């Protein structure tokens, strides 16, 4: 018997890259007054500036956020051996939201808060908050060695930090309005500097995740079998949590709470190919990029010249997809 070549993963990745390029062209052309050929728009100075300064970084940024969410979703589902695991499970989103709420609440009242906000910027603070949420989860779980304890701690941190954020927004209706775009997920503010941050996060986390792909494969057989195969589970889990925290933290800091992309991307890949984690991680990342890029174009086009919050779109479409999956008993 010949060794399986996993050819289908290569085909899936090829199709996803082609889709990404096609969506890139669509994204460059999609404006408030409908779709314009981006190649023709290049001739006009103003159009070229809009293309280069607004649409290009937004389109690329949306793809990178989706790619990070798809990657972290695949890592989370492998780490927790749970098909419903998603990138925000360890408290990154609730940490980012609370950090943002705190600084926005106090920045007008306290010199320290204003100084912190000025030094880190909104996305920097959200990133620090996301990492802080994961660190709190790890502290409560006493490390990453016990999967169920880690999962439960993540849920507790998510609920408690979410409640604190809600409390702050109840006190200040102005805060809710300010944070709305973050809470609903937004790709409209992604610029070139955000793209650089997202690209660095993707370039760091994808190879690290690939180095741990065999560990994720072994974990599918259960913790004890993985240990019996000589896997140092403590170190491996800590590294996987780091990948999860960095990728989800970078995505949530730049684009807010984008729902369902991280959950759905690995499932969509698994539907089309049986693969080990090395193939799944790459394909799920590409799939996440395509999903969010597609949602971003749709959000701009659906009710133009108005725009839908992209997070709402991914939540509605993702929720419908999950219901469909449940109906087909595929989950």
């Amino acid at each position, binding site marked *: 018997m010949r060794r*399986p070549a996993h050819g289908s993963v290569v085909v899936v990745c090829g199709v996803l890259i082609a889709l990404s390029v096609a969506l890139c062209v669509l994204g460059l052309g999609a404006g408030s007054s409908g779709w314009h050929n981006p190649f023709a728009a290049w001739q006009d100075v103003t159009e070229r500036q809009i293309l280069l300064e607004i649409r290009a970084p937004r389109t690329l940024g949306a793809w990178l956020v989706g790619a990070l969410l798809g990657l972290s979703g695949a890592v989370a589902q492998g780490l927790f051996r749970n098909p419903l695991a998603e990138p925000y499970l360890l408290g990154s989103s609730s940490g980012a939201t609370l950090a943002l709420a705190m600084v926005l609440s106090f920045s007008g009242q306290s010199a320290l808060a204003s100084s912190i906000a000025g030094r880190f910027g909104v996305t920097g603070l959200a990133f620090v908050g996301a990492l802080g949420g994961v660190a709190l989860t790890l502290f409560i779980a006493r490390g990453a060695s016990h999967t169920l304890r880690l999962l439960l701690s993540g849920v507790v941190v998510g609920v408690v930090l979410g409640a604190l954020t809600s409390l702050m927004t109840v006190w200040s209706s102005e805060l809710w309005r300010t944070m709305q775009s973050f809470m609903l997920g937004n790709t409209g503010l992604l610029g070139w500097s955000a793209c650089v941050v997202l690209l660095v996060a993707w370039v760091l986390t994808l190879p690290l995740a690939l180095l741990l792909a*065999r560990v994720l494969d072994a974990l599918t*057989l259960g913790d*004890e*079998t993985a240990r*019996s195969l000589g*896997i*140092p589970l403590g170190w491996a889990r800590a590294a996987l949590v780091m990948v999860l925290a960095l990728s989800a933290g970078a995505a949530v800091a730049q684009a807010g709470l984008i729902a369902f992309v991280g959950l759905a991307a690995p499932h969509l890949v698994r539907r089309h190919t*049986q693969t080990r984690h090395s193939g799944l991680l790459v394909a799920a990342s590409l799939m996440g990029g395509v999903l969010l890029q597609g949602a971003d174009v749709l959000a701009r086009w659906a009710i133009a010249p108005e725009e839908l919050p992209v997070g709402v779109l991914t939540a509605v479409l993702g929720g419908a997809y999950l219901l469909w999956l449940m109906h087909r008993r595929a989950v």
Partner: protein
Amino acid sequence: MSSDAASALLSVQGLSAHFGHTAVLQNIDLACHAGQWLAVVGPNGAGKSTLLRCMAGLLMPSRGQVLLEGVAMPHWSASARARQVSWLSQQAQDDTPMTVYDTVALGRLPHQGWMGLSARTMLDEQAIQTALTDTDMTQSALRPLNALSGGERQRAWLARALAVHASVLLLDEPNAHLDAPHQRLLTRVLRREAAQGRAVVSVVHDLSLALAADRLAVMAQGRLLAVGTRDDQVVHRAIEQVFDQALAIVQVQDRWMAVPQI
């Protein structure tokens, strides 16, 4: 150390284990020799699986020690231990979409460097192919595990354990879900593995299969009651006793069989 334990590939000395305040293993001494198949039998809750987990270095005993080639288990590095001892769990995960081939290939992880990062060699490929052939899984190699029957999945996991090529095989209920032809195949494979110089230890509930092993260890309530060859009358009486005389060990032609007493 007794001479029996000193010559053993894997030995257990004065081993006790607790879950909370409950003692699940009490003062067990057992030696597993190269070239022998040892079957561990006993009623539910006797501590058989816990004993196997301690022997695999997956559970720290509260007292006593496990020696692998005369060296205490904690002194072995995780990867070196994984190359020497292969363990098959009683309850493996059954919802993975990985193919049978990829699952069996995980058995070669201990030979592929830190975190399995080294490339697969020809030796790895040969070990995978042999394990698939031994378990009659070659035809199903490209099918995902979650699309297989219980018996086929069991054979895939068994192939994963065989692919390690370890000197000690610790198998917890390797015959679970297997039909008669594949139980016979399993018996032949375990005998062959032992004949090749490995120490094979299996927990089995099918006593007729256990009576095909070279030696038997009889357990009840966390204690080891008897150890001996399959022809040993003391072992036969211990089996009848721990199963509350619900069966009798009888000889049929040249084989020992467990016959239910109705």
